[in-house]
């Protein structure tokens, strides 16, 4: 294209300007993908918690922390608005939680299959194998999330070790881009037996292993507001804390919104700097081409035509920088995800929307940056411009 030849006039200068945009777009793509991943996790959590109430021991959080009893099921079920109560046992897969993880840590979750009696709306899809069954209680079998299965290089039929105990893999989930991807689902009894092992022997000896729970999931009756159910439980049961979808949104949602804003803000700032570089380049380019602009105007180019040429040229700088930045961002996010896969940490979700909007934004930024130099060029008097040395 002829306009590409104009960019080739000063290859180093054009190259440096394009590099500026490229870096800005790369930052936007990488940070945007991180934000997408965080959003997906948060949305997954939000969707999961919105129609239920989670009960944990006071001082616990999201079913992780202190100990409850399965006898509390009988205590809670008769309360107003309560439909089904499902006890569960959760613990970290490994005690080695090194550093700060961007994703959720790997968990072991145990509950009786189908104890929700169909109330659970979060549907799990199985890539291979099967779901857990009520008849699995008493057996050491496990369903793995997609990332955990990849990390442990496990297939259906393999035997893997969870906290030193052998489990047979009976199913592997499809990727959800949320917490289940790095969790291991086992029958309640198996989870209770594993959990007891994590407690000091003196304490463990005082407890009834098969009445242990770390959290209860309470499903409200149809049409009943989970907030009201949570209030009911708080009022009638002591030593516990409840969490609803609204609580989740307030606590987690707010924190991640701030993180998103920071990440995307950094990306946009890089781009603004790139944009300033384009303005500078185009201004210099116009100044160098003053005589040429004069001759074009003299032989009949309209002001609009001159503006159009310059704006298109700077839009192309933006477009090329955007495509290169997207390419570089793609490489970084792919490598980052590959590296993180080993530890089940998938950090980036580069969606088509992020890719397209980044390149589009770069192009528009380029065009906008060219506008002022273009306007100036179109206002040059042809005769004066022709004589410019």
């Amino acid at each position: 294209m002829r306009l590409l030849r104009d960019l080739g006039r000063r290859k180093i200068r054009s190259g440096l300007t394009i590099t500026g945009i490229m870096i800005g777009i790369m930052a936007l793509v990488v940070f945007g993908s991180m934000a997408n991943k965080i959003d997906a996790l948060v949305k997954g959590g939000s969707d999961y918690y919105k129609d239920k109430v989670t009960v944990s021991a006071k001082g616990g959080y999201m079913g992780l922390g202190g100990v409850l009893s399965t006898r509390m099921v009988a205590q809670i079920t008769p309360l107003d608005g309560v439909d089904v109560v499902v006890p569960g046992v959760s613990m970290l897969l490994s005690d080695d939680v090194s550093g700060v993880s961007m994703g959720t840590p790997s968990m072991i979750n145990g509950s009786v299959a189908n104890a929700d009696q169909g109330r659970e709306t979060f549907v799990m899809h199985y890539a291979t194998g099967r779901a857990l069954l009520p008849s699995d209680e008493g057996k050491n079998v496990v369903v793995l999330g997609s990332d955990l299965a990849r990390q442990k290089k496990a297939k259906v039929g393999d035997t893997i070790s969870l906290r030193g105990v052998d489990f047979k893999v009976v199913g592997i989930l499809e990727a959800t881009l949320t917490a289940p991807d790095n969790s291991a689902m086992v029958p309640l009894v198996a989870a209770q037996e594993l959990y007891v092992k994590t407690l000091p022997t003196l304490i463990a000896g005082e407890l009834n292993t098969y009445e242990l729970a770390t959290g209860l999931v309470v499903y409200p009756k149809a049409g009943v507001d989970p907030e009201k159910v949570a209030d009911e439980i708080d009022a009638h049961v002591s030593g516990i804390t409840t969490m609803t979808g609204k609580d989740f949104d307030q606590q987690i949602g707010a924190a991640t919104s701030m993180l998103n804003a920071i990440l995307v803000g950094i990306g946009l700032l890089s781009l603004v700097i790139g944009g300033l570089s384009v303005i500078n380049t185009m201004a210099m380019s116009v100044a160098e081409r003053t005589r040429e602009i004069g001759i074009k105007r003299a032989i009949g180019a309209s002001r609009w035509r001159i503006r159009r040429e310059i704006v298109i040229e700077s839009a192309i700088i933006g477009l090329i920088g955007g495509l290169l930045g997207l390419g570089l961002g793609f490489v970084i996010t792919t490598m980052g995800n590959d590296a993180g896969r080993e530890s089940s940490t998938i950090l980036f979700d580069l969606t088509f929307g992020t890719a397209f909007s980044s390149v589009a934004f770069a192009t528009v930024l380029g065009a906008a940056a060219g506008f002022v130099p273009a306007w100036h060029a179109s206002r040059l008097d042809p005769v004066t411009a022709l004589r410019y040395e």
Partner: protein
Amino acid sequence: MAILEGRNLRKTYRLSRKNTVEALKGVEVMIEKGEMVAIMGPSGSGKSTLMHILGLLHAPDANHGPAPELYLGGENMASLSDNARTKIRARRMGFVFQDFNLVPTLTALENVTLACDYAGIGGKQAKEAGVAALALVGLADRAGHKPSELSGGEQQRVAIARALVNKPEIVLADEPTGNLDSERSAEVLALLRQFNREHGQTIVLVTHDSDVGEACDRVIRMRDGRIRDQGQGAGTPVMAARAVAVAVAVPA
């Protein structure tokens, strides 16, 4: 028949708040169709300013005197907007400048078809016209070369092809041989004369070069912003001879 007529043409340039230059002080000029006219004069005589007004690059001043009149092919151009003047330059005029002024990133053909583009002619039609114009100036085989690959004389010939490609009513040339050696100057002058004699192309030249003046039908001499002499050039005998030939041929 006059192709270009101007009356009461004035132009004052404001260089700063207190510093103005009265470049043209009221000029009356007429260019006949098919004429090749030179405008000559010392620096500051206003010859370039007159050329810029005749070429619709600047509008004549309307204040401080009677209303200016400028007719191209009988139509009044004196008070047109910048956009309107630009359109007319694109479609009905051709320009040749001292410094060739070709776009360095375009080939010879692309430089020529740029004029077609600005006149609203594109695609195949523009390409054909461009090739024909380059052939007329003897550069058909250099169509794909960039200006850096052409000599000074060749570049000026490309500029002439660009000026002629839209078959303009008038070609205005500002010191077309100024940057050329005597051999190349003679070539370019011969080319312009050829277009004038064989195709009846009206050409107005601004020049310092007396050889160029002598090759024209008429020389308009200017001094201090006014026309001193609407003059005759060495080319006039040709005009006179044509007039005689017509007079002889008419009685049936």
